[in-house]
C-alpha cells in the first residue's frame, strides 16, 4: 500500500477524462460518443469522491466520531446527485439515437447529418 502515491485516484480521474475527450472528438459512431460522455461523467464523479477522502478517516454514517477525523460527506452527496442526473441524460441520449437510427438507417455521424452551413 505504500508504493501507491497519494494522488493515484486523481491521476486515474484525469486519465478517464482525457480518454473520454479523445473518444468524443474523434470517434464517428454515435453509440461510442454516448459511451464517451458516460466515461467523462465517471471521471468527474471519481474526482469528486476522491477529493473528500481523508487517510484513516471514519465513514460519514455516524453522528459524532470523536477519535478520528471523518471522510468529507458533502462530495459524496454531490456525486450522488451527479450520478442521478447522468442517468437521465444518458437515457435521453440513447432514446434520441434510437430515433435517429429509425429515420436515417445509419449510426455513423457523417452519414446521418442533414443540416450543414
Amino acid at each position, binding site marked *: 500500500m505504500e508504493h501507491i502515491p497519494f494522488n493515484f485516484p486523481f491521476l486515474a480521474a484525469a486519465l478517464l477524462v482525457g480518454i473520454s475527450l479523445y473518444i468524443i472528438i474523434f470517434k464517428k459512431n454515435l453509440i461510442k460518443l454516448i459511451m464517451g460522455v458516460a466515461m467523462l461523467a465517471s471521471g468527474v464523479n471519481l474526482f469528486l469522491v476522491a477529493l473528500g477522502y481523508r487517510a484513516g478517516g471514519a465513514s460519514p*454514517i*455516524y*453522528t459524532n466520531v470523536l477519535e478520528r477525523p471523518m471522510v468529507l460527506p458533502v462530495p459524496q452527496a454531490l456525486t*450522488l446527485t451527479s450520478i442521478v442526473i447522468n*442517468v437521465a441524460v444518458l437515457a435521453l441520449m*440513447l*432514446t434520441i439515437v*434510437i430515433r435517429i437510427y429509425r429515420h436515417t438507417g445509419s449510426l455513423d455521424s457523417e452519414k446521418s447529418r442533414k443540416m450543414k452551413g
Partner: protein
Amino acid sequence: MLSKIVRTVTNEFMPFILVFGFYIIAHGHLTPGGGFQGGAVIVSGVVMLLVAFNHQEVKQVLRERTLSIMESTGALIFIALAFAGIGAAFFYNFLVGTPIFGRIPPTGPNPGDFWTGGVIPLMNLAVGLKVIAGLSAVVLAMAIFSSGEEVEE
C-alpha cells in the same frame, strides 16, 4: 422469451429483489442508500423481467397509465411534504420532535434508530416511488421501441 429455466428462476428471484430494494429505500437515513438507489435496484429487477419474458407480457402487467399516475403521485407527495413546513421555511423538517420519525439520533458509532430523521424517510419513499415508475417507463419504452413497434401516447 428465453428458456423455461431462466423464466422460472426470474419468477423466484423477483420477490427477493423487491424486498432488497425496499429495504434500501426505507433505511436511507441510516445506511448508504435512499430513494434513488433503492428505486434503481427495483428497476434492475424489472429489466431482468424484460430480458426473460417478452415485452408484450411485461407491458400487460406494467401498464403505461399506471406508471404515469404512480410517477406523478410520487412527485406530488414530495412537493406536498416540502410545502408542509412553509410556516417556517420551505423544506423545513417539521417532523422533528413529533412521534412520527421524530427522535434525535444517538451520537457515536451505533446500530442506528429507525424512527429518526423527520421528514427525510417519507421523502425517500416518495422519491423511490417516482424513480421506480420513471425508470421502468424508460426501460419499457426502449424495449418496445427497439423491437420495431411504435410507442403510443
